[in-house]
């Protein structure tokens, strides 16, 4: 493997880490009633909007997994999917969001089921 291929690890680490710091600040500086679930929603919605406006694309190109692995990346592909779907009308809009996120959702459902069958919670 050429050494140059590993250069993209640095932005992945930095941007991924920074996004998580943002989420941590949102968790620690808000009222207790603003739970981690609320924080995740903020990031998914922000990612979707940024994706639809085309702002997230450059970040994803620059940071790679640092932008696609945090949940903003999930919002980004859903927002982008719906906007791209809009080119083929309202049906495309309806299918676009979940369609783009389908691989992740299906994988998560599958693995969850397999884990539920195979493991016992340890507490």
């Amino acid at each position, binding site marked *: 493997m050429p050494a140059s291929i590993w250069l993209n690890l640095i932005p992945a680490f930095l941007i991924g880490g920074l996004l998580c710091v943002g989420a941590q600040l949102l*968790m620690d500086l808000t009222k*207790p*009633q603003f739970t*981690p679930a609320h924080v995740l929603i903020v990031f998914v919605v922000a990612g979707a909007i940024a994706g639809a406006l085309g702002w997230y694309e450059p970040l994803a190109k620059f940071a790679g997994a640092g932008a696609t692995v945090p949940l903003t990346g999930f919002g980004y592909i859903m927002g982008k999917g719906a906007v791209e779907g809009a080119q083929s009308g309202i049906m495309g809009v309806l299918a676009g969001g979940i369609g783009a996120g389908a691989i992740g959702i299906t994988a998560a459902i599958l693995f969850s089921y397999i884990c539920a069958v195979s493991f016992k*919670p*340890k*507490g």
Partner: protein
Amino acid sequence: MNKRVGQKTVVFQNPPEIVGGYNVVGPKEGQGPLNAHFDYVLPDTYNGEKTWEKTESSMIETAMNEAIKKHNIAVGDIDYVLAGDLLNQITTSSYAVRQIGRPFIGMFGACSTMALATAVGAMLIDGGFAGKVLCATSSHHDTAERQFRMPTEHGNQRPLTAQWTVTGAGCLILSAGQSAQPDQAVPTGQPAKICVTAATLGGILDYGQKDANQMGAAMAPAVADTLLTHFYDLGTSPEAYDLIVSGDLGTQGLQLLKELLGKSGFHTLDNLQDCGCMIYHANQDTHAGGSGCGCSAVVLSGYLLDHLRKRDLRKILFIGSGSLHSKESLLQGESIPGIGHAVVIEALDK
């Protein structure tokens, strides 16, 4: 003699005796500072059961059965079983008493249940309605997590104010005092009996606290209120007790209680402690301490009873603290109603 004193206090005419107790705790509690005072430490959180709910039920069942066995009491002599826990419809206790077959009074006071059961049990006995009563409560960390918080394997960062639900079950046997046998030989310097001499049951107090991750703050005003009422009703003050011990206020809750009592003129509170602060080492990463029905139950039936027997403690005020909310009530924006129930337990000479 009138057994009711003041606003909310009862003083027992023939103080019911705490014959003894038995407790069962989880592995984490077994590693805590009170280890020597626990009768049985589970090897793991399941202890061979399929679900944690079954484990918790078996714990309270073991505590009751072993207490009965240890003190040579015939099951048929038990007139009432007073038990409760944290789970919906107190199923843990109901399943646990299936085999006992004695009249069952389900108790719910959230984490204050042990104090509530002890107080009510003592009333039943002093009122002449019962000769022997079992009082038992339990909690289990993982069943509580499942019901009140998140799935057990879900990752979350617990706030510094959060308390750790104790895995533990404790049982006390209360019995009508045997004052009819004054000639029974008692080794000198040993207490003849540990008795419940008075009780102050508290009302609900809601100071608008809404954070389920800081229940100590929700309960501290109710505990302070019950304590103040108790002192006022009996004309005593905190100095009258070797130890005043709350159920599970946790680090911040205890500090708030001290401040609240301070504002009412009680400043010497060196004898104020909290079961939740006693049960774990600081390095056990529980943050603000232990909580749950089991917390005060195992500390009372273990540590406190042992020291009363040894007479290191002669008179204690045990005050259970409860926060009576549900997961749904908090999601609907309700605040947490707090409650505090106090019982006076004394090591008496014959």
